[in-house]
């Protein structure tokens, strides 16, 4: 007999359904690549004339941060939509809990699945970066785990929100109020330190700027041990905290 993690069954379930719906995810993979080309290679021409950003060409500045920003967006959507659906409209979790699976298994399985998706989409992004010449050394490969970790930490938080929210509009609101501003001002498109300091303080409480800075410094080979560990600690804290909160919310929602 082989010992398998029960959560793997949830991943298998998702993989089966995914085979039928993967086409609708194509635009979420291709869209970010278009932003990378239009802004990195396009607007980058104008910026590099003036010496680039922080010693990097704009493409090299943008690419690792955009990978992390997109992972955040993917994590938020993946952590919210399908999970809300399976709690409210298509009660798959209820069926799963009638099998030997327990609530933490279900949640862990969902997060593993999201982790797999993030790994796949971020790998495509990394390949596109390499093709565009946005990778300066093998260190760029390290942006991949940073992106996946950032996406997962956000997904765990959004799974909690999904379990607590009354309907799908919550996502529209949280996405517009939190995710879009983070993506636009969280250091992905221009250096974070150009923002007013009170905005920076608030943004620094979220995982995104930490993921972006960690990935960018790793890719450029300019990272220093202590700040990098600090960024990493914030991401891990969000992931662990998000998991614990989501477990609590799932338990309340799913176990009568």
């Amino acid at each position, binding site marked *: 007999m082989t010992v398998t993690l029960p959560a793997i069954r949830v991943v298998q379930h998702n993989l089966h359904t995914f085979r039928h719906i993967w086409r609708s995810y194509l635009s979420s993979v291709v869209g970010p690549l278009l*932003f990378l080309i239009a802004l990195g290679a396009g607007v980058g021409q104008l910026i590099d004339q003036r010496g680039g950003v922080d010693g990097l060409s704009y493409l090299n500045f943008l690419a690792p941060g955009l990978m992390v920003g997109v992972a955040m967006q993917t994590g938020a959507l993946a952590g919210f939509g399908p999970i809300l659906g399976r709690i409210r409209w298509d009660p798959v979790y209820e069926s799963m809990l009638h099998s030997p699976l327990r609530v933490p298994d279900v949640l862990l399985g969902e997060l593993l699945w999201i982790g797999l998706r993030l790994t796949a989409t971020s790998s495509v992004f990394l390949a596109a970066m390499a093709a565009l010449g946005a990778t300066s050394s093998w260190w760029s490969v390290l942006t991949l785990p940073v992106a996946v970790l950032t996406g997962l930490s956000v997904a765990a938080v959004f799974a909690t929100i999904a379990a607590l929210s009354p309907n799908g509009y919550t996502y529209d609101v949280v996405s517009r109020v939190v995710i879009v*501003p983070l993506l636009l001002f969280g250091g992905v498109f221009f250096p974070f330190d150009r923002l007013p300091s009170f905005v920076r303080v608030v943004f620094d409480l979220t995982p995104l700027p930490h993921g972006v800075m960690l990935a960018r410094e790793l890719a450029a080979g300019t990272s220093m041990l202590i700040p990098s560990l600090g960024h990493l600690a914030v991401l891990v804290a969000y992931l662990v905290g998000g998991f614990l909160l989501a477990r609590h919310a799932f338990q309340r929602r799913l176990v009568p």
Partner: protein
Amino acid sequence: MLLSTRWLRLVERNALVYRHVWPVLVAGLVEPFLYLLSIGYGIGGLVGSVQVGNQALPYAVFVAPALVATAAMNGAIYDTTFSVLHKLRYERIYDTMLTTSLSPRDIAVGEVSWAMVRGCIYTAAMLVITTAFGLTPLPWALSMLPAALLITFCFAAIGCAVTTFLRSWQDIENVYLVQTVIFLFSGTFLPVDRYPTAIRWLTELSPLTRGTDLLRGLNTGAPGVALSVVDVLFLAIIGVIGLRIAIRRLGRLILT
């Protein structure tokens, strides 16, 4: 015929429904504004100024008309794909309407007109913001409103025509992908003469490029007359063609 005003009934119906979902409109206004801040000022701080013709424009001034044009396009596409598809395939409201004295022509003209009413609100709000930031000085900013309405007309007609070919929500994802391509590669962030030659040809034929060119010309206060006339004709002709296709296809879809 267009002389009949029965299509106004459809506009009236949409307006009545809309009273209940106005928060969507407010949310739709916030996003272009955030883009303006992030791209115009954030990335703009890195770019400095852009050479257009013989003028050096601050990047925010360069980008603002493009973002007004994009807001007009996005509103038009959203109003004529998402909600029209819903009415056409799921709610089946148009079938009901045909039992009254409304014709497929009234429906297409009504939906496009309604998109223009909303587009007028989006772009007016956007222009108020850009004018307040000193990016689109008066009185020329006033002339940009009717120009933006022409962009809305063009994309609303195209949107209606395209929606008649969509089968389900999955297909809408492809529409949004095309919309992203148009948004990013229509001279929005980079003067078209900086594109590689092969791409530039395609870019020049994008209705958004023509719309942005028209608005940018008006914004400098000295639009090149010949090119502006070409822009206006291009948008109007594409719009009329789209509308005709929409009328023909709607007739075939709901009369059979």
